[in-house]
């Protein structure tokens, strides 16, 4: 696999090219470090569904996170995280390349009702959105509205952004001053300020302010890198400065900084070429051959290696080594022709539409995202020549769009399968309702809630009367009531009996005793029983109220259920054509994107072919000059240009 060069800086505006015959392209891709829109002190999760959103966010699954966030807001499940949710939503839209939507959300957060740290972050993200859309003055104004420091990594990123914005506004001195205020220069630069200095330094080179550029680039070119990315940045800084010195006619200074570039690394080819030219500028051609011969044996795909194929015979010619010069020029012509044929093959493959799918198939990730960057290229003819193009902002953004469109097509396709299940669910609801309604009606008919409530009220009135009358016997148990009634009947019989009969008198006495005993029992239990009856009545009240509540719910559900089912049916029916229409549009947009990217890829390949043709012509011209001089039998140095 061929790995693309990665640089830390997230915004893909730092591709700069030095001019002239040195053919240096300083390309930088975007960060492999995925942005965290909510860097800062994590807040405790107070709503479970907020935690659910974060679960996907922390895995960089922005599509899932955004979908769940929107759904949770629709269900009103984020009551404790309303502001954080909006901030995250804006960040997620930004992560998904939806600048306008992100900008709208962040603007809404800019009012006095939100805390200062939220407003600061909203200003920061708005500045990013505007910067990305090239509204530089608005971006600068937004950054100036931030009060105090931002949390975590956002703070150095803010300073970097500020420097970038000022630079692109042409206010280079202000950009440098902003950098110096944030972090004075020196060898102990952190990653953020190193990138800022590099970018501004290269911009100075472009505008011809070499001494200013040197000050910044030299600092970056001597940092002690802790990571591979910083090491690559250091190489780029030395490369940029080296070629700037070369162009400015200072080859010795150029050689000194170019020799700091690692011998094996993404910039080594260009550095070797530059070191050779530095020596050649001082007419030290023998020394110049050393790096060029090393370079010649490297991959001819590289522009520096192609140039070395011409530079070597040129040096031999300068050293009057005519035979070697001829050999090398001939070798160069053959190599260029071979490469040109390979480029033709690649162009043919791209015209057949194989470019993007070859690239995307090689990408193992399945996540939509603005911060997705191509990590590996397939080692295929159609991709081999396209490093610089693939690192360019236009191509990367176009590729991201294409990839996102394809992912969204797959996403919609899986939802389309679910629609059948939704339709089945709606039918199931209808059938279930039709089946259950008769049974439900039977249950409801069996229960006479009004009658039960009437009985309950009657019971309460009865107990009130008992309490009012102090009717202790009314709360007797069934057995006690039986005994009481028996006693009353006995009393009644005894009342009619002969009072002179001593047995009758005895019976009356016994009956009086038993009645008294019963009354005593009733009295002593009365309060407890009354309390118990009251308690049971309260419980009955509660149960009755619950039964009534459920009754109302059931009735309401029964009334609303059919309408709700039909609403679901309408929603499901409406989704099918929408999905079909969107899928069609996605397909057409993906094709258009594919055609556009293929067009710029072919344009790039044709320009490479053109360069090879020019080199080939130079080589042939130089060969012709040598043969010419040889045929006139006067040894002289051949020139290539």
């Amino acid at each position, binding site marked *: 696999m061929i790995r693309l060069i990665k640089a830390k800086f997230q915004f893909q505006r730092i591709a700069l090219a030095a001019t002239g015959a040195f053919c240096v392209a300083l390309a930088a891709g975007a960060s492999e470090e995925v942005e965290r829109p909510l860097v800062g002190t*994590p807040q*405790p*999760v107070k709503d*479970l*569904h*907020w*935690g*659910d959103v*974060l*679960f*996907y*966010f*922390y*895995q960089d699954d922005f*599509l899932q996170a*955004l*979908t*769940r966030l*929107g*759904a949770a807001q*629709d*269900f009103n499940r984020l009551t404790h995280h309303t502001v954080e949710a909006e901030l995250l939503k804006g960040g997620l839209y930004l992560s*998904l*390349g*939806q*600048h*306008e*939507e992100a900008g709208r959300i962040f603007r809404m957060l800019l009012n006095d009702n939100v805390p200062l740290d939220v407003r600061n972050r909203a200003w920061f993200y708005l500045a990013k959105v505007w910067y990305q859309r090239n509204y530089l003055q608005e971006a600068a104004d937004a950054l100036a509205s931030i009060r105090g420091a931002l949390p975590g990594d956002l703070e150095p990123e803010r300073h970097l952004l500020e420097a970038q914005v000022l630079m692109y506004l042409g206010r280079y001195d202000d950009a440098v001053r902003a950098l110096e205020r944030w972090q004075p220069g020196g060898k102990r630069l952190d990653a953020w300020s190193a990138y800022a200095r590099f970018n501004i330094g290269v911009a100075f080179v472009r505008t011809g302010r070499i001494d200013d550029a040197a000050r910044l680039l030299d600092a970056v070119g001597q940092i002690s890198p802790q990571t591979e990315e910083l090491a690559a940045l250091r190489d780029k800084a030395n490369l940029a400065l080296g070629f700037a010195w070369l162009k400015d006619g200072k080859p010795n200074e150029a050689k000194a900084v170019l020799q700091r570039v690692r011998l094996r690394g993404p910039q080594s080819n260009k550095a070797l070429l530059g070191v050779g030219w530095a020596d050649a500028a001082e007419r030290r051609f023998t020394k110049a051959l050393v790096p060029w011969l090393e370079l010649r044996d490297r991959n001819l795909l590289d522009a520096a290696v192609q140039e070395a194929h011409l530079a070597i015979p040129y040096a031999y010619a300068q050293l009057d080594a005519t035979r070697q010069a001829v050999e090398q020029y001939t070798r160069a012509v053959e190599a260029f022709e071979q490469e040109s044929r390979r480029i033709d093959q690649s162009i043919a493959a791209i015209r057949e539409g194989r470019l993007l799918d070859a690239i995307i198939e090689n990408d193992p990730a399945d996540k939509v995202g603005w911060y997705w960057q191509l990590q590996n290229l397939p080692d295929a003819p159609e991709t081999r020549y396209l490093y610089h193009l693939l690192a360019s*902002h*236009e191509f990367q*953004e*176009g590729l991201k*769009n294409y990839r*996102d*469109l394809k992912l*969204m097509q797959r*996403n*919609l396709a899986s*939802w389309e399968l*679910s629609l059948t299940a*939704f339709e089945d*669910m*709606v039918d199931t*609801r209808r059938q279930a309702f039709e089946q259950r309604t008769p049974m439900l009606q039977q249950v409801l008919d069996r229960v006479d809630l009004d009658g039960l409530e009437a009985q309950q009220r009657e019971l309460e009135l009865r107990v009130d009367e008992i309490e009012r009358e102090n009717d202790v016997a009314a709360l007797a148990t069934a057995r006690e009531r039986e005994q009481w009634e028996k006693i009353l009947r006995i009393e009644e019989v005894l009342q009619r009996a002969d009072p002179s009969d001593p047995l009758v008198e005895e019976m009356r006495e016994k009956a009086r005793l038993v009645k008294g005993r019963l009354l005593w029992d009733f009295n002593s239990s009365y309060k407890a029983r009354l309390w118990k009856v009251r308690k049971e009545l309260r419980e009955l009240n509660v149960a009755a109220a619950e039964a009534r509540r459920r009754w109302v*719910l059931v009735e309401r559900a029964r009334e609303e259920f059919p309408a709700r089912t039909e609403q*679901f049916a309408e*929603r*499901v029916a409406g*989704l099918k054509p*929408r*999905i079909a229409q*969107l899928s069609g*549009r*996605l397909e057409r*947009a993906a094709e*258009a*994107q594919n055609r*556009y990217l293929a067009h710029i890829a072919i344009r790039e390949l044709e320009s490479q072919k053109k360069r090879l043709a020019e080199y080939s012509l130079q080589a042939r011209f130089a060969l012709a000059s040598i043969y010419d001089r040889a045929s006139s039998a006067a040894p002289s140095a051949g020139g290539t240009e």
Partner: protein
Amino acid sequence: MSEDFKSLDQEVQSLKKEVLDLNRELFVLEEELLFPANTQVAIFVSMDVGEFFALDSVTIKLDNKEVANYLYTPREAEALLKGGVHRVYIGNLKAGEHELIAIFTGQGPNARDYRRGATVKLEKGVGAKYVELKISDRASRAQPEFIVKQWD
């Protein structure tokens, strides 16, 4: 950037916005259809561990029937450690009492294997029921346990 690119980019942004909105609508509809609020039960897993703990899996049984058996990738476990909460199960339950059994397995410091469980009685009423299973070692240092919280 060329005008062609900008025009394409605008169209792609607009399309993506429609797809994102549609995604949300479909997600909401799916939940409303399959798991209506009055019968919905959802079980969430979260972590609050001070010592190292690598979560491997969580198994959920409701009324003695296994309803979820989830294997966590390192990425997902990392997301939990950062404070994410995973909705491991969503389903439907009738009103009344139910039994939830949850078991988690993982590795603690010194590659020690852990397997812990919790049994919970759930009272399902009218309205959605949420249960949070928090794997925590705060109470018993270096010994992760389930802490169960019920949300209505």
